[in-house]
């Protein structure tokens, strides 16, 4: 079967009707489900956090069968993911979509686990260090989208697990954990 980078594509990716938005309701429901799973799987494996509807997202077209999703289809499928809470539209025009292959809550849990694993219960770190520091190498937090990270941290802040503070410059936001 085909691969996109190191991601193994499912067989039905070569099924031409997969790329046509189905008019019959039941068929469309099934189609939407398959697209949801595929998009989330792919984004997770490739650590993709952002999808631009009009951009060349690799899943949206299949040159082997010469098919690609219409704008309407793309919006429909992404909206379905948004509807389930696994993505968010970043603009009213539905042009950019933030993909939450982990929910914010899941990310929050991952951060807590990260803190425990590295014995950072009472320490201070910059936000940037969380996503690109040595501790995060090889973990899921490596390269996490800033927006998502901030949301997860805010969530934890509300739960009293940490405190966010501004540093000397704009990128120098820090975190004090009190897990």
């Amino acid at each position, binding site marked *: 079967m085909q691969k996109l980078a190191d991601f193994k594509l499912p067989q039905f990716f070569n099924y031409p009707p997969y790329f046509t938005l*189905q008019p019959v309701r039941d068929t469309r429901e099934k189609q939407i489900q398959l697209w949801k799973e595929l998009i989330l799987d792919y984004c997770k494996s490739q650590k993709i956090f952002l999808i631009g509807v009009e951009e060349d997202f690799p899943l949206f077209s299949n040159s082997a069968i010469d*098919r690609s999703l219409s704008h309407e289809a793309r919006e429909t499928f992404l909206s379905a993911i948004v509807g389930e809470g696994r993505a968010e539209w970043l603009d009213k025009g539905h042009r950019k979509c933030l993909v939450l292959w982990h929910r914010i809550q899941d990310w929050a849990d991952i951060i807590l686990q990260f803190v425990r694993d590295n014995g950072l219960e009472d320490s201070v770190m910059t936000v940037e260090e969380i996503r690109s520091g040595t501790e995060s190498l090889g973990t899921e937090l490596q390269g996490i989208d800033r927006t998502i990270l901030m949301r997860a941290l805010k969530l934890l802040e509300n739960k009293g697990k940490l405190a966010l503070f501004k540093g000397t410059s704009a990128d120098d936001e820090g975190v004090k954990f009190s897990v």
Partner: protein
Amino acid sequence: MASGSSSIGIGGLFENAEVTTSGRPVLRRNEVECFLLSSVDIDSEDDPPRFTALRSGNLILTTHRLIWIPSQSNGAVPSSVPLAAVTHIYSHKKSIKSMFHSPRIRFQANPGSIVVTIVFRGKGDFDEFLTKLWECWRGRAWEEEEKSESETSRSGSGTVAQGLYGNDGTVRMVGLAGILRKEQEQWESTDKSLQDAFQDLNALMSKAKEMVSLAEKMRQKLLSAPSSQNGSTDDEEMGSKEEMQQWMLSVGIISPVTKESAGALYHQELSRQLADFVRIPLEQAGGMISLTDMYYHFNRARGTELISPDDLWQACTLWEKFDVPVMLRKFDSGVMVIQNKSHSDEEVMSRIRMLVTKTETLKVGVTASDAALTLKIAPAMAKEHLLTAETKGLLCRDMSPDGLRFYFNLFPEIDPTNIHIVKDFGTYGEWIKATSLLSV
């Protein structure tokens, strides 16, 4: 030249012109009409006038004559002047004075060098007429006839045919003159047949008027008759009313009381006749035929007494009331078809299923035309069936620049929670095999 002395001109300048019963001039052999103007007077220039003026008529210019036909029957006689008699046409000078007067043409004609004025009081294209008059007069079409007549009278053996006319007097079709002549003749014969047709049409129109007024009278009678509410006396009336309807149907007039009676007799009869007729075309079309196709077949078979699309549709809807083996069916798309009651959707679905699960069609799908060929039905019908199959979940669609294709619907067989799994049984596996086998 037509005989008939004229009481108008001295020494017969004007001749009586033959006209048909509907007032069209009878043209002679090779005579072609060139122009027509209405509201024309013909006056004598001389004082005292040398002929009685002709007032208010239509003037027809032909290649041979000027024909004047009175527009009202005011006792005037249709008259004509042969162009051959015209010796001189006065040039038309436009002056301030002429702008305020009706345009006129003056010409001199023999016998007697009579000066004639034609006054145009109507709205026609005067300039065009004048141009054509010069053309026709200069064209001297009458001379060619005389020439051909005189040539045939000569004993023509040994003389080489020269010019436009052969030895036997018929026109030779040579050169540019020949081509023009041929066209001219064709145009003349068309003109003649058109004239004949118009005469028939006029006759038909006057008959139609009679029929319409008759039908109106009948209609009034039927409508004014009281509707059946009370007593036995009305049975008689009802009886005669029905008789009236029958009679009217037999002369082809649709009953005016359609809404009151339970489906007009006309439609009922038509409905039965249609049900009988429909059997054979239906078989030929594979069990289902569109309403428009049936309209064509039925009317073609009838030849005359054609029925309207509305009549056809009404006749089909009446089938519900009778016990006939055919039915009218309307698809979601609005397409209406006639099908055998025995012709079930299930049967077509199973045939489609068989078609789309073949190895080749699993891979490339089917278009409406593919289906039409395989199922042996009309492409429009095939499309309807494919769409129905799609709605039922048997097929799904693929839209691309190549067009619309339908595939066996694999979506239900794929597990969204485990998108890489392929079940051992099922068409999904077949499809995978088909695509890997046939792809290069």
